[in-house]
């Protein structure tokens, strides 16, 4: 995958999930002299990793992460996320440009007093999609509902058009690349990052069902 997009992996260093100590990995990463670090360190591990990465004077090597998560951005704060890149399925500032996102985020803000997060958006979309299937079929029979959704593959509940791929039931949807704002330039308590690019939904970015052994 990395090669396909023109990158070369100069080294990897796996760590045990749930670990708060990365100091033993950092000199090893420095020694490999990477141009960028791709870190898969979810949850609290991510805060630990970024704190220690910064403290080892490595900030000049950019960090790219597969998934950012809103509560985690809030938890780490602007100092930690300054300049860090991440992917996300939803970010509340999309409300500025996408009407569906504004409708969803406004409702969330009104109900919970804070902007909508990413996993919550997945759950919202999932529930709305099941509801759409039930409305289409006037049935609550799982198989009937699922078949109807497969036949009517496109939907749009909170951020634009998405669709189901028939062969594996995967939802294809736009994703966004976000980047940590400089401390002092954040937007309120929750505006830690800014959107830098939209990655339109595209089946070619994923493995095909044949490659996954499903077709």
């Amino acid at each position, binding site marked *: 995958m990395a090669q396909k997009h023109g990158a070369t992996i100069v080294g990897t260093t796996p760590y045990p999930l749930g670990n708060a100590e990365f100091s033993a990995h950092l000199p090893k990463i*420095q020694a*490999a002299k990477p141009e960028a670090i791709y870190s898969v360190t979810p949850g609290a591990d991510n805060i630990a990793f970024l704190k220690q990465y910064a403290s080892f004077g490595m900030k000049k090597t950019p960090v790219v992460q597969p998934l950012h998560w809103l509560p985690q951005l809030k938890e780490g704060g602007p100092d930690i996320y300054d300049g860090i890149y991440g992917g996300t399925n939803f970010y509340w500032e999309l409300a500025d440009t996408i009407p569906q996102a504004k409708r969803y985020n406004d409702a969330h803000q009104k109900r919970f007093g804070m902007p909508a997060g990413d996993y919550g958006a997945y759950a919202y979309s999932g529930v709305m999609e099941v509801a759409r299937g039930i409305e289409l079929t006037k049935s609550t029979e799982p198989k009937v509902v699922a078949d109807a959704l497969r036949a009517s593959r496109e939907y749009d509940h909170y951020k634009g058009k998405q669709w189901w791929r028939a062969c594996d039931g995967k939802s294809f949807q736009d994703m966004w690349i976000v980047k940590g704002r400089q401390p002092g330039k954040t937007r309120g308590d929750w505006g830690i990052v800014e959107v830098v690019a939209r990655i339109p939904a595209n089946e070619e970015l994923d493995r095909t069902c044949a490659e996954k052994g499903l077709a």
Partner: protein
Amino acid sequence: MFDISASALAAQVFTGLVLGGIFVLLAIGLSLIFGLMTVVNFAHGSLYMLGAYFGVFLLGLTKNFWVSLVAAPLMVFVLGLVIERVLVRPLYGRSIDDPLLLTFGLSLVVVEAVRIVWGKIGLTIDPPRALSGALDLGFMTFPLYRFFVIAVTVLVLVGLWLFLERTNVGLIIRAGSRDPLMVRALGLDLGRVWLLVFGIGAGLAGLAGILAGPMRPVYPEMGITMVIESFVVVVVGGMGSLLGAVVAGIIIGEVVSLTTFFAPKLSEIMVFVVMALVLLVRPSGLFGEAGLLE
């Protein structure tokens, strides 16, 4: 995959040494309470976590890292006094399992209480400005803050050693851990001594917690992995031996660091392999007194 250069290896060995120092700091409080009172304090991780949370609270209040660094461990010290007086004291003279189970239960209660008070989303502590930089050592850049943590660890160890070896209270504590009956026969109040030891052990856990804050995330479950790390250090070093905790901390730090360098997937398991090997050869740990657990 990685060229093994001398400087890369030097960086790895050095990192392991400092990491070992941090492990020592995490384990001292646990070692102290066990060695002198034979109480296996499973709430050690929770007291560590409370040290960090009290630190966050005090930082918000005072905006001063140094004041918080002194006050947060003191708060945990006082809490330790209360825990000993109210919960642990009635269990003296019973089997070693009873205080172990009690402190384990207590640790669950503390984690849940912190979730209620501070929420499930973690918090952060920033290192003070003066310590937030990194130092260029030639073969690597290394965080200034970690040197500070090691300096504090050395200070704590020297202080504890002087207290136990050179003061009258220290003499009574050591005598009480050898032969409590005899000490009582001499008319000394061991209850007060144990109260103090438990408080100090708790305070040291709290100190480790606030010191860990700028390096690690502060969240309610942060003590869970830490208590495992501490137990490994205490068991390898020998239950109750401060010297053992220091030697074991450094050994474990190097094991983690070098395994991470050569075979990262084995880094977690190697720690336990080393522990098992030590226990096979020396069942009471490297510097432990035999018979403490019987």
